[in-house]
């Protein structure tokens, strides 16, 4: 917990006064075809030159940035200058006005979202993203509309405020620039750098190695970062055999605040379930990713949010042309690798509506978000939650046409902020550490486990053994030993500080004394790694199988009796992500081995889900007419090693009755119409899944 919410601190090795030169390339309104959600009235009044000057002035006030004057910002700079130079570009990704009719007033919520990217203009690598949504509330007499002058003024004021606040947040959250000496070349050609985690270096970081004249000698990526030193892959260079010791490896824009010992996170995807998301509320995925990134970064700065996977994707071809080399494709494979990726899906987005007794139409706008945090190396789900947001709207008969699209955006952003708050309060990964105490004759391993985390049965770990020693070149003092991957192992069971494990495949080094460090959850040992293998919704009301799978996964994760491995599709996505985003460039295959793939991720148990949702029937509830619903869910657990061997099974039925509204009352009840049946069942399934899993967990022997 503390690891997540701890505010970033200044790093020890980076000089506090370091300023990086920054060139503000552009400040534009994001086009609609790129996911921009801007009111045409905003675009008309947006003067890029003036806005860019305003943003430039706001950034110039920050101590960490040395802004290049707008008139002198040609991209034609000396190569040596590139070592301490980053680029920035900003987009207005959203600008709109939501009208809210209240009893005595009509209120207008004017919102603008600005996203600022700091990037390497030569490679396209995105170092940091800061996004913020600002809003202004304007209150008028009931029914009165905003004049066009008021709209323009409100947009201008809101945008100015958003830019101001955005710059303020950057002050603490982005500390650009890392420069560390190469202190040793390892026997296999890899390089050891004279600073580690505390200087902001993390696995996957891309560094340029330069000589004393500032000339580029090679490019390296960090493979492992330890406390006092870091190891990079073999440098990509015209002359790899040249002497490297004494040169400086640097990155002008790498964010040092993301290099603390806490875990790092990256938003990977925000899906929209087509079955339960009304077409009118489908938004561009990149936009959703940025919003979730913004919400998590705002709510829990300690999450160390790395630029999301979509980073860099907003630029148009024209923007790319402006970047010095235009090699947008180089963004791939150049990322700092996060510890966790965040996957989300919008499980419902709709407006339930009903005509009220006063002739007005009442809407309840709803959005539901399933969010999960997956270990990027094993794929394991570490945290899963579901957050639902609602917003009420009312339109008097014949009064106006309601555009719920803008209301939905505000609702979604509020709901994502709620996700952020929930994550900050509940999500608490810790480290589990240990060593191999004994290698038994049958090849199985006895582990000694320390740390607060508990290892799930079936969980996968990488074992490390000591490799070459790294010494300080001046004092010759030992800084530590390079860690070498020795084997991947699967935990069979943990019993207090002792655990049993089996190796996966062949080990490449002797395993006695080998160590492991892995993210883990706090809780009872003996949790079993389970994967939802199959979901079957039998005849009746159709609730999407993918949604039911997500619901069951959340229930299993929240039960604290199971650790959850996502389904093969998600694992394949994660593996593809590794290939596409993290594994390219000079990253060695050995380091890539640490990442999960579909072949080596295997659960201890498979879960099979069977469900049936009966069509609603008429019933009575306390003498009132009602609609009755019945959901039945069964969960079958079988051994992953032998799928014919059942581990446990259980099934429950849940009956709910919804009283119909009394006629003539000033009461409107929404959500009972025929098209809402699946949504009701989705809600019931969340409850039922929890109780089924709880009951089943109680009957299951631990560490089986």
């Amino acid at each position, binding site marked *: 917990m503390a690891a997540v919410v701890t505010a970033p601190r200044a790093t020890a090795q980076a000089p506090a006064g370091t300023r990086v030169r920054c060139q503000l390339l552009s400040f534009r309104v994001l086009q609609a075809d790129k996911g921009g959600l801007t009111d045409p009235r905003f675009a008309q009044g947006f003067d890029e030159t003036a806005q860019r000057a305003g943003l430039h002035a706001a950034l110039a006030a920050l101590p960490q940035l040395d802004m290049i004057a707008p008139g002198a910002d040609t991209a034609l700079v000396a190569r040596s200058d590139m070592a301490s130079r980053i680029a920035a570009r900003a987009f207005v990704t959203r600008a709109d006005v939501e009208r809210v009719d209240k*009893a005595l007033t009509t209120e207008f919520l004017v919102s603008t979202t600005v996203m600022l990217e700091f990037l390497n203009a030569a490679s396209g690598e995105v170092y940091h993203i800061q996004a913020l949504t600002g809003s202004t509330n304007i209150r008028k007499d*009931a029914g009165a509309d905003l004049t066009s002058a008021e709209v323009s003024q409100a947009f201008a004021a809101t945008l100015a405020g958003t830019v101001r606040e955005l710059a303020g947040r950057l002050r603490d959250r982005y500390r650009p620039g890392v420069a560390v000496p190469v202190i040793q070349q390892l026997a296999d050609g890899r390089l050891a750098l004279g600073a580690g985690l505390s200087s902001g270096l993390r696995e996957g970081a891309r560094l340029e190695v330069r000589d004393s004249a500032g000339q580029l000698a090679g490019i390296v990526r960090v493979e492992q970062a330890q406390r006092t030193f870091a190891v990079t892959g073999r440098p990509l260079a015209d002359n790899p055999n040249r002497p490297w010791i004494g040169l400086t490896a640097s990155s002008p824009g790498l964010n040092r605040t993301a290099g603390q010992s806490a875990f790092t996170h990256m938003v990977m995807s925000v899906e929209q379930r087509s079955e339960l998301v009304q077409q009118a509320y489908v938004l561009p995925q990149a936009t959703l990713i940025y919003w979730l990134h913004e919400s998590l970064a705002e709510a829990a700065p300690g999450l160390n949010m790395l630029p999301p996977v979509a980073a860099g994707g907003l630029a148009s071809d024209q923007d790319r042309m402006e970047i010095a080399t235009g090699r947008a494709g180089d963004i791939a494979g150049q990322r700092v690798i996060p510890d966790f990726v965040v996957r989300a899906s919008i499980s419902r987005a709709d407006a339930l509506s*009903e005509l009220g007794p006063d002739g007005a139409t009442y809407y309840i706008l709803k959005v539901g978000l399933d969010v999960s945090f997956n270990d990027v190396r094993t794929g394991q789900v570490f945290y899963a939650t579901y957050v639902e947001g609602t917003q009420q709207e009312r339109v008097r008969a014949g009064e106006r046409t309601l555009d719920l699209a803008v209301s939905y955006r505000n609702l979604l952003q509020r709901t994502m902020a709620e996700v952020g708050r929930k994550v900050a309060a509940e999500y608490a990964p810790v480290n589990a550490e240990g060593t191999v105490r004994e290698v038994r004759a049958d090849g199985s391993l006895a582990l000694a486990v320390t740390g607060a985390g508990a290892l799930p049965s079936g969980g996968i770990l990488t074992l490390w053994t000591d490799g070459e020693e790294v010494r300080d070149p001046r004092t010759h003092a030992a800084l530590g030993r390079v860690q070498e991957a020795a084997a991947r192992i699967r935990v069979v069971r943990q019993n207090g500080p002792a655990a049993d494990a089996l190796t996966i495949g062949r080990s490449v080094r002797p395993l006695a004394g080998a160590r492991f460090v892995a993210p883990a959850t706090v809780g009872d040992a003996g949790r079993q790694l389970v994967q939802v293998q199959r979901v079957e919704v039998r005849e009746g009301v159709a609730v999407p199988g993918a949604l039911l799978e997500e619901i069951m996964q959340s229930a299993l994760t929240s039960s604290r009796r199971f650790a959850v491995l996502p389904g093969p599709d998600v694992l394949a996505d994660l593996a593809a992500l590794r290939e596409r985003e993290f594994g390219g460039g000079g990253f060695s295959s050995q380091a890539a081995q640490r990442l999960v793939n579909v072949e080596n991720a295997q659960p201890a148990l498979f879960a099979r889900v*069977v469900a049936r949702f009966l069509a609603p029937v008429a019933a009575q509830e306390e003498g009132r007419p009602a609609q009755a*619903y019945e959901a039945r869910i069964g969960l079958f657990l079988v051994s992953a090693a032998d799928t014919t061997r059942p581990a446990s099974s259980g*099934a*429950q039925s849940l009956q709910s009755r919804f009283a119909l509204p009394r006629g003539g009352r000033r009461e409107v*009840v929404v959500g009972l119409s025929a098209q809402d049946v699946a949504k009701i069942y989705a809600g019931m399934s969340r409850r039922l899944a929890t109780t*089924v899993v709880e009951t089943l967990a109680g009957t299951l022997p631990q560490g089986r």
Partner: protein
Amino acid sequence: MTRSIVPAALLAVACLGAAPAAAQIRVPRAVNRAISGPSPEIQRLLARIDSTRARFDRATALLVTSSLVMEGVVSTADRKAEIRRELASANEREQRGGENRVELNAEDHATRLEAATQQRQFEHQQLSQEQSANVNAATFNSALAALLDAMALNDARQLIGEAQSAASAMGSEPANAVYAQRLTNAATQQLPAIVNAVPTQLRLAAAIKAAAQQARASNQAVQVSEATAVTDPPRRIDPNAI
């Protein structure tokens, strides 16, 4: 009540004051009868008729004022000015108008209020504090008026027969002519007018009540909620029975 009783009393006082001794000599029986008035039964009957008419008049006045208040909530500025004038003279006009006029007014007001209620014009109003207080008073007054009207209707139906019988029984005796005429008027005009007017007035009272409900509701949010369920505890079932 007062308006009906006072003229009768004045009449009695005028008769007493204008009776010279000579007249007493010339028509002693008539004078004696005039002094003593009609029989106690007829007196009680007349008092009941007066009190029934008073109730009806009171109900009428309350309804007219209430309906004007309710119309004021939805009316235009011109109509509001007109209503202010009407309100100021409502009681006087009532006294001048008589039952037929009242009946017509009640019909008018009821129609206007019903239309406004149906079109949900009251729903659009945001009431001032004063208007809210007025609407509350109008609701109470119209309810009171309905009660008074109902009592007046019952009494009137009963009194019509009694007044007719009493008028016939009094015969053509000159000394009783004035009372017989009053009873005949009551039985043939005043009481039937009440019987005819009350249903319209009750309709007006209902229209005022409906309009007031809608007007009051305009300041309250309609309760909107998503369907909430009463859920039984989960029941264990056979997994194979799904």
